[in-house]
């Protein structure tokens, strides 16, 4: 790097202050990173559990739907499905994990009544119930998954910041301030020897 550094005491003091700030920031960011990572671990555990649960529920739901179709025929099932009015309410809001915004969903189902009525079978009711269960699990899953993605992104960012401070900013400041200190000392020595030589010359002219 060929940036020129001012070799003054003021600059040295400024750099020292900067270094302290960088150190503080580094420490804080490091703590944030560690906290985020532990949070992330928890989320991933949850995520895996939920994923498994959802898949199981969905498999059951598919099974019951296939039964219902076998009993009633595709068209009949489709007609029943088309007549279902959507009544799910989803409230989406935001939550904070260590300063990372993550979405939060809450879903409310209407009471357990089927909104289709005529010429349907018990199997269809069962399928509806199973799919509702699955949908609930999916909404949960959506929340956790989105949180995990957001957290992962933020961990990456924080990591990069920590590394930049540690590997680039702090060493550079250190290098610069050593350079200034050496330079100042050198100037002082120069000055000292200059004074000595002047003194010697003055004494010589006095003696003459």
């Amino acid at each position, binding site marked *: 790097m060929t940036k020129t550094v001012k070799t003054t005491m003021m600059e040295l003091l400024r750099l020292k202050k900067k270094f302290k700030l960088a150190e503080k920031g580094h420490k804080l960011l490091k703590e944030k990173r560690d906290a985020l*990572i532990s949070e*992330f671990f928890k989320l*991933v555990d949850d*995520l*895996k559990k939920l*994923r498994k649960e*959802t*898949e199981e529920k*969905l*498999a059951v*739901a*598919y099974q019951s*739907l*296939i039964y219902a179709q076998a009993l009633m025929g595709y068209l009949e*099932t*489709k007609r*029943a*499905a*088309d007549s*279902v*009015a*959507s*009544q*799910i*309410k*989803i409230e*989406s809001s935001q939550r904070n994990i260590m300063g990372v915004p993550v*979405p939060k*969903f809450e879903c409310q*189902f*209407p009471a357990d009544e089927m*909104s289709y009525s005529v010429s349907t079978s018990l199997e*269809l009711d069962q*399928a*509806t119930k199973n*799919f*509702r269960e*699955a*949908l609930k699990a*999916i*909404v949960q*899953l*959506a*929340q956790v*998954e*989105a949180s*995990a*993605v957001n*957290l*992962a*992104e933020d*961990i*990456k960012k924080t990591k990069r910041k920590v590394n930049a401070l540690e590997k680039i900013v702090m060493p550079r400041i250190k290098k610069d301030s050593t350079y200034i200190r050496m330079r100042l000392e050198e100037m002082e020595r120069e000055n000292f020897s200059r004074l000595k030589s002047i003194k010697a010359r003055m004494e010589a002219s006095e003696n003459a």
Partner: protein
Amino acid sequence: MKQIAVLGDLELVLGMKLAGASKCLNYQTDKAAEQVNQIKEFPILITTETIAAELKEKKLFQELQGVVVQVPDKSGSRGLALKQVSKLFEDALGLKIENQ
């Protein structure tokens, strides 16, 4: 208010309709762009692993703004979703985890 959208195969759409999801579309390969356009603003989108993979191939996946949940279709899970989790993990921490 916009709610849950479903982009899936016949069975998923039928089931989700029964459960009461608000917007259900049968995925059609030749109308993919149009369909994505219709649902891209929903907060939650449910789709199957197969369709998600196809959307990614067509570069439509990024247009979805909500949370996309990939679920297995009727033939069972292909394990893609779990793979995604461990990829996320790898990206964030730089180490691999074994899937139990």
